[in-house]
């Protein structure tokens, strides 16, 4: 489906988001194809029962852990990467043997409709259904009893999903967002760092990505150099007039456009713009915009930006950036650009986030051996690679005992000898076990 209908997918993404073909290819089609191929290759291995070691406490016995499907699962995806964020969990759910209902986002209508048409054509309809719609349809879906719900989107709607899930004691995975910080040290290869920040921010759906760099933190001394490097590379990437560049996505709709312009135009924030700031409501375009030292209590620093605005906060010393980050809720990703090994260590040790990436942005998403998910406000549960399979599986413990063999002294009537033997067996010390056995047999 992904191979044969690549053009249809790219066209839909362009219609919904003005997503450049190359972005669409890398971030949606290629990644999803890779996940499919991995699942096909590894499926046998993932499905195999795992032997579990047994101990004195259950001797003699053998044990294993089996993966079994949960049943009928609901996947609710979002609009910024409509194909990736729908299909990646669907791959996991199907690989794990479940039946699936997919509810794509109505905010990307062309993609939603292409998803429905293609999935119905290519995949077994009796096991996978796509249900399109908006709030009404989603609410109706949430009233049903599911064996698992997988939700990607905002914390606000995540809570609504949890309320519905609580009724049926349904486990959920919530892939939310957060303000993903980027700490930039002066000890760094600046042109490369700037390129990677720009690629992660504006090169990925124009900042409308859950793991996009939300804001930068650097030292007061280094900030001017950083801004210059960003300015230079932005020119290289998108040219003199980024509003006209074909290589950058637009803002998805008027609601978000208005939300973003409000963030930019807030009192005490609008005068901090050092680059960009242009907007065109008709074409839903906002140019790459950098702001320096906005107030910490401004709206732009309180909510997840999800757009092409990049605030830079400055601190006296780089270590101060950790307190700035830790004063906010845990993000989905945290980034750090540095060559200093101590800084790298401190960063990993002192910051909690869903995932972390040193000296790059976004790409940890592509590593299928790393779980992708949040912590705290950025979500619960994880997926990608085998983690997707596990996310939609129940790991059933199976213990095999026989009716032969010595009976354990655990039955009444209780005697001191039995209690002694129990102590020894649970304590695991062979010598004590032998002593207690002798004592019990003497009884």
């Amino acid at each position, binding site marked *: 489906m992904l191979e044969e209908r690549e053009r249809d997918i790219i066209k839909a993404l362009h219609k919904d988001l003005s997503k*450049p073909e*190359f972005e669409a290819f*890398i971030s949606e089609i*290629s990644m999803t194809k890779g996940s499919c191929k991995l699942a096909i290759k590894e499926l046998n291995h993932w499905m195999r029962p795992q032997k*579990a070691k*047994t*101990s004195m*406490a*259950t001797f003699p016995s053998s044990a294993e852990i089996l993966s079994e499907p949960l*049943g009928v699962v609901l996947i609710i995806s979002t609009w910024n990467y409509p194909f990736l964020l729908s299909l990646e969990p669907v791959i996991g759910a199907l690989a794990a043997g479940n039946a699936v209902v997919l509810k794509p986002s109505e905010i990307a209508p062309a993609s939603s409709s292409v998803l429905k048409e293609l999935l119905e054509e290519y995949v077994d309809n009796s096991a996978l259904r796509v249900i399109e719609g908006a709030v009404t349809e989603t609410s109706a879906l949430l009233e049903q009893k599911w064996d698992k719900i997988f939700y990607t989107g905002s*914390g606000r709607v*995540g*809570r609504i999903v*949890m309320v519905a*899930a*609580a009724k049926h004691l349904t486990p959920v995975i*919530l892939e939310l967002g957060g303000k993903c910080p980027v700490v930039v040290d002066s000890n760094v290869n600046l042109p*490369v760092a700037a*390129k990677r920040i720009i690629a992660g921010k504006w*090169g990925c759906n124009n900042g409308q990505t859950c793991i996009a760099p939300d804001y930068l933190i650097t030292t007061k001394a280094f900030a001017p150099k950083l801004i210059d490097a960003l300015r230079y590379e932005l020119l*290289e*990437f*998108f*040219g003199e007039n980024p509003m006209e560049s074909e*290589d950058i996505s637009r803002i998805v709709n008027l609601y978000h456009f208005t939300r973003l312009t409000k963030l930019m135009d807030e009192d005490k924030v609008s005068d901090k713009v050092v680059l960009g700031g242009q907007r065109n409501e008709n074409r839903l375009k906002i140019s790459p915009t950098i702001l320096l030292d906005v107030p910490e209590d401004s709206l732009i620093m309180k909510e997840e930006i999800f757009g092409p605005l990049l605030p830079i906060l400055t601190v006296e010393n780089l270590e101060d950036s950790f307190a700035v980050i830790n004063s906010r809720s845990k993000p989905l990703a945290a980034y750090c650009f540095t060559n200093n090994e101590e800084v790298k260590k401190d960063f*990993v040790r002192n910051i*909690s986030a*869903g995932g*972390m*990436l*040193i*000296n*790059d942005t976004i790409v*940890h998403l*592509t*590593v299928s*051996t*790393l*779980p992708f998910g949040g*912590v*705290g*406000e950025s979500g*619960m549960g994880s997926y990608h690679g085998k983690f997707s399979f596990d996310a939609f599986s*129940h790991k*059933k*413990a199976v*213990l*095999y*005992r*026989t*009716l*032969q063999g010595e*009976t354990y002294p655990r*039955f*009444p*009537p*209780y005697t001191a000898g039995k*209690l002694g033997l*129990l102590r020894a067996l*649970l304590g695991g010390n062979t010598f004590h076990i032998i002593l207690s056995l002798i004592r019990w047999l003497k009884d």
Partner: protein
Amino acid sequence: MEGVKKDLEGELEELRETYNCGKTKEETWRRSQLKALLNLLKEKEDDIFKALKQDLGKHQAEAYRDEIGTLVKSVDYALANLKKWMSSKKAGLPLAVFPSTAELVPEPLGLVLIISSWNLPFGLSIEPLIGAIAAGNVVVIKPSELAPACASILATSIHTYLDNRGVKVIQGGISVGQQLLQHKWDKIFFTGSAHVGRIVLSAAIKHLTPVTLELGGKCPAVVDSLSSTWDKEIAAKRIISAKFGTCAGQACIGIDYILAEKRFTSNLVELLKLYTKKMFGENPKETNSIARIINKTNFLRLKNLLEEPMVKTSIVHGGSLDEDNLFIEPTILVDPPLNSTLMTEEIFGPLLPIITVDKIEESIDFIKSRPKALAIYAFTCNETLKGRLISETSSGSVTFNDTIVQYAADSLPFGGVGGSGFGRYHGKFSFDTFTHEKAVLKRIDLLFDIWFRYPPWNDKKLMLLKSAYKFDYLGLLLKALGLKKS
């Protein structure tokens, strides 16, 4: 009330401060707390026995077997494996992001709440506590007020032995529970009923707190028609011990009901009666080897189960009740009505219904048509039946030819599915349940960069990217040098 609320906030504030200063992340702190738990279990053993006797009428041997002994085993296991669990794990790295290193770094979640149940008041508080401490969190335990002597001993001994600034026991009833749930937790671990589980889950929504729910269900025991006398004897012993010898049937993984073939049932009933007498004596109330019913509410609930029409007449053994002493005799029933409350709700008491089927394979459909239980038991030598049970039913766990012991297995995840809950613990699973596995990717700083990653986009870059994603490095090189067209 205001005073209580303020105290509570003060306590939680202290815990958060302890966590933020980083002390609990150190291996030394975690190890010291686990060792302190070991000392607690050894030195306070008599107090624990007394409390369990007082609240539940539990015999020392049962208390040791099911609570203290199992906990000692679990703490030992955690101490032996702590270093390993705490260390980062390397993750395999695909070539797409070469050169880099990738690893999974376990980190604590922060401030966690453990709400435990009354039937194994020490076991169900301390088993998750082991995982929470090993994972480096600060902890509040809210033990059940229905076992007040145990709650009190738990509180005083943890206060004495463990770091008070990192682990607290907060006692109280429903209102204290509700107040606790209003606060922000980084994880809530709940053992108890589905009804309260929903309340906990609803409270967790405000702060998007992840939850583990260890609930219950009707755990069936499929008892095949065994032929050898020895097999039948062992099976009967294990069934009786599990049902009546484990908190008088008030256990989430106790056998709720039996499924047996009609032709085997009378033989089975005889054996069960025989071993009930052998294990608990002619007059079980006098032998002190069976626990009591926890309180009047549950006693009356169980009494009502027996009084429904057609249930009373299906009793084949036992059935006597002593309200003053909260004692119910081990009771066996054969084929009570399937729509009786006894057969629709979790029994959680010493009443053992046997449902008969024509062929044992029918038990599979019977189990499938009911909510998923925490455990399924099967006594059989039939390998085909075992295979079918595993693949055609779903439950937290399956144990063949025994009962309850899976609780003691450190390498098996302990938890439910569907109506019996979600999440799991025991052994390393306890550590994991209170851990965030943080993905860390470190790119090695390159002298050059892959220039075709970046806009402005053109066909050549796309072509190169496509090769790179296929790991077609030769093609990539040739195309980059212009020696090959796509």
